[in-house]
């Protein structure tokens, strides 16, 4: 396109000064962004990182002169390529959106209209702004699909959104954002919902296309390793304030602020593995399916040693959560058996004895749905005590307080509802509820994936401490290899309902790997800005 040549790398494209943004909650305006400056040059990729609630999305959206409903930009200036976005009329801003500033959201599935072909949605902005005629726009879209390395670029646009995979849809969304060759793209957690193996392809495609067109980008994420691949410069936000800002390499090597250092440190959490021959739970040749046809577990055998942590890893759809459902009795296996302390567990939940149920507890990914919003902590943690151990009244309350102390919450939490606690606190309460039953095995289903990194670390530390105190066994289901490194003794790798590999952490995480394990491990982003480039090179040469 003609405008490509006009673009000069290095001059300032976006300048935001003293940005203050208020958000409305309970009919009061509270600041979300408290005076942040941001400058972005043409062709530069800026990474915005921080925990949830740090204001990174709000700041990113403000870069296009947009405030979400319930938010307002109270002061500061936003100059985009000489245009004052705050002073500009709504109409003028809308003219810029889509054509010169584009936005790529976290969930492509929610952003696409399921009733229209992908290509119609890709070209919609270009046609709407009257930039080019339909045939040209469609040819251009196919070109973009090709550049984004989508399979069958000439025909994929004729599919509906539900007919392509999540990673492909995310790339199609990037194509949509690129259709008018914008000067600035805002990526808001574009790969967070994807599996690691898919994430690599999407990241590579996005980085590539942004480079090809010399587009400036703001990349919002909470994943440091991802931002290290994508951004030239990183800004760390916390509570709506800027904590630190530096070029990517400097930032990774020498973070100056304590908060930034603590973010970096999370990834270094590691546990020394220990083996054990005392098998508490022995899954033997278990197969299970939903309905009659879809086999989700295919001849799975796993041994879980007492007092240890066995991590089950794999991408979504690999059957790791189904394994948990088979063990808990929610989905009785069609063949195979599960031995618990050497005795066969009845397949169906209703045939198990209360004391057996007590010994196997479960913690869920999302504490929001795992805790009844109408029950107070007293009842949430107290119920297993009452149900299994027959504790009542003051005895029960005393034990609840004891449990609260063991999860590092004080007794004032006993009268709180789930809605009155933070995400990390809720997850702690979930842990306490499992502990209350005094179990032998706790199944942890993605328990940290909905949490911020610092909170994740706290929860993992707590789980390790509890294991040291009570010798409880964890079956830890996760897709996050960093978590596995941190807490596992043994690892089970699952793919398409089968166990690919099982063994001690040191064995599984070191070569020689089975092919799938290698793909999975190599796809985990590292805190090294050259990781993605290196990986792509290696995979290319392997193919050649």
């Amino acid at each position: 396109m003609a405008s490509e040549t006009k673009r000069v790398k290095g001059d300032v494209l976006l300048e935001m000064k003293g940005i203050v943004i208020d958000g409305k909650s309970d009919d009061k305006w509270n600041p979300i962004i408290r005076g942040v400056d941001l400058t972005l040059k043409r062709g530069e990729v800026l990474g915005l990182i921080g925990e949830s609630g740090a204001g990174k999305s709000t700041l990113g959206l403000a870069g296009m002169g947009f405030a979400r409903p319930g938010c307002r930009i109270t002061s500061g200036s936003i100059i985009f390529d000489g245009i004052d976005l705050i002073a500009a009329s709504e109409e003028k801003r809308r003219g810029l959106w889509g054509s010169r500033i584009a936005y790529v959201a976290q969930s492509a599935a929610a952003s696409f209209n399921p009733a229209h072909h992908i290509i119609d949605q890709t070209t919609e902005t270009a046609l709407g702004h009257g930039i080019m005629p339909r045939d040209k726009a469609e040819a251009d879209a196919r070109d973009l699909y090709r550049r984004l390395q989508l399979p069958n670029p000439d025909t994929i646009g004729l599919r509906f959104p539900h007919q392509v995979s999540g990673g492909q849809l995310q790339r199609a969304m990037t194509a949509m954002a690129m259709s008018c060759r914008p000067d600035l793209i805002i990526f808001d957690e574009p790969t967070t919902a994807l599996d690691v193996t898919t994430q690599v392809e999407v990241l590579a495609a996005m980085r590539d296309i942004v480079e090809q067109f010399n587009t400036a980008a703001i990349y919002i994420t909470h994943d440091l390793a991802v931002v290290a691949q994508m951004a030239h410069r990183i800004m760390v936000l916390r509570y709506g304030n800027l904590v630190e800002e530096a070029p990517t390499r400097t930032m990774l090597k020498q973070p100056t602020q304590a908060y930034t250092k603590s973010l970096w440190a999370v990834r270094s959490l590691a546990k020394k593995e220990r083996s054990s021959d005392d098998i508490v739970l022995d899954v033997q040749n278990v197969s299970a399916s939903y309905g009659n046809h879809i086999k989700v577990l295919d001849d799975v055998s796993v041994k879980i040693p007492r007092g240890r942590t066995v991590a089950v890893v794999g991408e979504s759809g690999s059957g790791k959560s189904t394994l948990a459902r088979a063990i808990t009795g929610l989905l009785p296996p069609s063949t195979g058996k599960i031995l618990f302390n050497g005795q066969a567990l009845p397949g169906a939940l209703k045939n198990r004895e209360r004391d057996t149920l007590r010994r196997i507890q479960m913690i869920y990914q999302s504490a929001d749905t795992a805790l009844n919003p109408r029950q107070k902590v007293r009842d949430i943690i107290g119920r297993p005590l009452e149900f299994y151990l027959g504790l009542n009244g003051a005895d029960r309350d005393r034990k609840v307080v004891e449990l609260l102390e063991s999860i590092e919450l004080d007794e004032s939490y006993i009268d709180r509802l789930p809605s009155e606690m933070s995400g990390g606190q809720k997850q702690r309460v979930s842990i306490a509820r499992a502990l209350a039953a005094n179990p032998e095995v706790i199944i942890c289903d993605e328990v940290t994936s909905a949490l911020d990194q610092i909170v994740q670390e706290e929860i993992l530390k707590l789980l390790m401490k509890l294991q040291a105190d009570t010798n409880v066994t964890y079956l830890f289901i996760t897709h996050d290899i960093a978590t596995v490194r941190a807490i596992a003794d043994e690892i089970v790798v699952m793919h398409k309902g089968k166990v690919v590999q099982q063994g001690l952490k040191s064995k599984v995480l070191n070569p020689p790997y089975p092919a799938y394990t290698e793909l999975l491990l190599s796809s985990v982003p590292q805190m090294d800005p050259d990781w993605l480039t290196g990986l792509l090179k290696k995979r290319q040469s392997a193919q050649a």
Partner: protein
Amino acid sequence: MSAIQLETRLIKGRRTLWQNIVRTLKASPNSARFGMIVMLIYALCAIFAPWIAPFPEADTSAKGMLPSSWTHIMGTDQTGHDFFSRLIFAARNTIGIALITALLSFFVGSTLGITAALQRGWFDQGVSRVVDAFLAIPVLIFALMMLSVIGKGVFNLIMILALLDATRVFRLARAVALNAVVMDYVESARLRGEGTRWIVFREIVPNILPPLITEFGLRFCFVFLTIAALSFLGVGIQPPSADWGSMVAENKSLISYGYALPLYPAFAIALLTVAVNLVVDWFLQRTSGLRDGK
């Protein structure tokens, strides 16, 4: 530390139920307050009718068609009933029957609805299809037909209307319960080994109560209007019991002669319907988190 100490310390700083109610009422909008006051007056009339009304329900000692005076505030009807007294007694009959019917339909409808959501499978399919069949027939016509087949009478009236309304309640209860049963906390209770009673009353019902209560208000209105309509058509509440629908029907011809008589019971019906709706609106807005885009 002793348990009692712990107890008092934990309770301190939290509001009691009564304080919560007062707080909520203070924050209520005027429309809801108006609705609540009207409902309260109706309820008092219904409960204390024999003490408030100047004449007994079936008293015909006065002459017919007397104009309003100090003894007969609204005058008398053709048979010599004191109209004002009839109006007050009618509150008792109409509201009482509507309330019993609504409660019954809720008991049946939500029990079936929650059970269907929990059980799924053939039970859900069976009940749902039967309900669909019922929903295809207009309530008033169906009720009219049934009443003429099995005979008039308060008991039959309540049974038929409760059954018909239970189908509506079933749909709602099943839908909201379906959303709740898939929650992890329900699964967690199941894994704990809890029985159905605990799962229904402790895990599911508290979470689906707000929409059900709202629906109850609306259902009550509909039942009450249906009863009035049926009475107007002559198959509802039977004389000598007073009732607004039949009072409108008995005196409807008078309106051509310039009497306001049939308007009083009609107004009574309209006012209560509006009042209940105002309160329900407010409740719905509070619990569903709907805001008017402000």
